[in-house]
């Protein structure tokens, strides 16, 4: 029988390699699939540029227009909070920085553990609120498919198991940490095959949007 330490070593070793490989290859395929379709030539005389308006739109969609904020404040606030929280916990927790450094060679300063801990707690609450909203809001419930709930779970679990492992809420520790790493690997493996790809493709989508409108002289 596998000990909790064996399990941890397995998740940190071979499984991690496999997850990273699927993630990188999967995302590459997705991006190639998108760009290979190309765009047909546009013969209409442009009113404005595409590149700069496209880049501006990539940034601008982080801040919704005032009308949308007024009509959907919950979406905007909760969505923004948990997305930022998730990114902070992922990229600025010191042990995560170490893993990234060991994997891709890039490093940056992390945040003190208590700060990341608080951010993680807020992120968990934000994700739970987002799920409740999805289950109750008429439009969200109508649009939601099983995939939407699967990716919610796949996103929620690494945060939850990270929080559990950090606070030693489950013993033995190697098991708790192994489970956390496993859920992170599931996230990586699932990402390219689901709408989690928006993490990468939304940048592309926003750019195309900004370029389409920019060409006509409108900053979207």
């Amino acid at each position, binding site marked *: 029988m596998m000990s909790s330490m064996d399990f941890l070593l397995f998740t940190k070793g071979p499984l991690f390699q496999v997850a990273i490989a699927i993630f990188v290859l999967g995302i590459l*395929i*997705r991006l190639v*699939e*998108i*760009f*290979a*379709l*190309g*765009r*047909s030539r*546009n*013969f*209409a*005389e442009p*009113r*404005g540029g595409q590149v700069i308006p496209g880049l501006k*739109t*990539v940034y601008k*969609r982080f801040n*919704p*227009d005032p*009308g*949308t904020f007024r*009509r*959907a404040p919950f*979406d905007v606030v909760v*969505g923004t909070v948990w997305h930022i929280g998730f990114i902070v916990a992922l990229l600025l927790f010191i042990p995560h920085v170490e893993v990234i450094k060991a994997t891709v060679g890039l490093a940056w300063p992390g945040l003190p553990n208590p700060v990341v801990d608080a951010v993680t707690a807020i992120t968990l609450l934000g994700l739970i609120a987002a799920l409740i909203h999805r289950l109750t*809001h*008429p*439009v*969200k*419930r*109508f*649009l*939601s*498919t099983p995939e*939407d709930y699967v990716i919610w779970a796949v996103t929620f679990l690494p945060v939850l198991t990270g929080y559990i492992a950090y606070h030693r809420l489950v013993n033995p520790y190697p098991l708790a940490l192994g489970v956390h790493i496993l859920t992170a690997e599931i996230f990586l493996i699932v990402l*390219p*095959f689901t*709408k989690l*790809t*928006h993490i990468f*493709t*939304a940048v*592309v*989508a*926003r*750019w*195309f*949007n*900004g370029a*389409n*409108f920019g060409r*006509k*002289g*409108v*900053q*979207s």
Partner: protein
Amino acid sequence: MSGFSLERGLQALREEMDAPVASFFSSCVHCGLCAQACPFFVETGDPKYTPIHKLEPMRLLWEREFTLWGRLKHLVGLGRKVTDDMLAQWEPLLYDSCSMCGRCSLVCPVGNDIAYMIRKAREGMVASGHAPEGLIAASVRAVNTGSPMGLQWKTLEVQIKHVETSSGLEVPIDRQGADYLVLLSSMEIINFPEYLEAITRIFDHAGVSWTLSRQCFEATNAGIQIGSKDIAATLVQRVVDAAEALGVKNVISPECGHAYTAIRWEGPNAIGRSYPFRVFHIIEVLDQLRAEGRLRTEGKEMDRLSMHDPCNLARKSGVIDQQRHLMDLVADNFVDLKEHGKFQWCCGAGGGVSSNERAEALKMAAFKRKKAQIEEVEPERMVTMCATCRTQLEEGLEEFNMDIPVVGLTEMIADHLVEKERA
């Protein structure tokens, strides 16, 4: 019309798939914020009118045939197939409840240009035989008679005579080498004959060299609304032929939103080449004349005026400041609606909705958003620069017993011209 089939529809959709579409479908997380940008959802509260949902058949086809994962799912018998029934079910969603106003494209957090995809999805609907009767009839009339309302040159000629009598000016016809070829819309000719007189007087005042063309006077393009590249190309080609025959330098699209996007943005792509002339909306031309000091006006409108930006002109074409400069010229008490310019709300009638009798109730429902906006600023009159918007505003305001007349901006400018001294 014959030869429509599911397979032709799917093929038309396949041809519409491009990198932007793939990036948009890859990015949607079903947040539903596009619904909050759509007058058809906001005023009915029915989730099926959520903009991205209107593209579900196109998304299914993309996933199944344009992604590795979708193809794998398809191989093991998973994933839904687009059926003829499904397209039939989506017909009212893609036509009756969407004016292609593009407001959703401006608010989507992941950046999906949803209106861009609706336009493409309609190509598949036409090819599969799922376009609304009203739009098919308008397209057939446009192709056969040159006008979506079946209007003939002789009708316009009567109006030209009228304008000439009342203004004492000549309406130039088929004048070779004129600077501007003026196009009209049938709806304008029928509902708002004052437009032709207004431009006749303004152009005389400013000394603009212009002409109408007997060969082609219609600016609107039913092919763009129904979603048929072939029909769109046929209709645009007529404008190009007329402009080239007369050797004009510029073509002016009338007070009509979709005609402008059709000729200005889609036209060159429909015929697959750039034009040897430039295209302007009448409002752009008037603002240019103003900037050059060629519009001398006197007196101002003193009542409280507000303005409706046509989606096709403002959000979809970047003509936003020009109409405001012109308002400043002739209006003393102008107040903008709260959300205006690129964030304006559609009147509810664009994108073919007004030619589709089946959509009548939805069209009036969507108007309630505009009504609410108008009520916020309480104008005495509304000004706009699109015949479809204007008709919808007039009908809607009457429906709700609001005594607010609607005027076209071009006529308002013409009313304030300083009388020219006769030489």
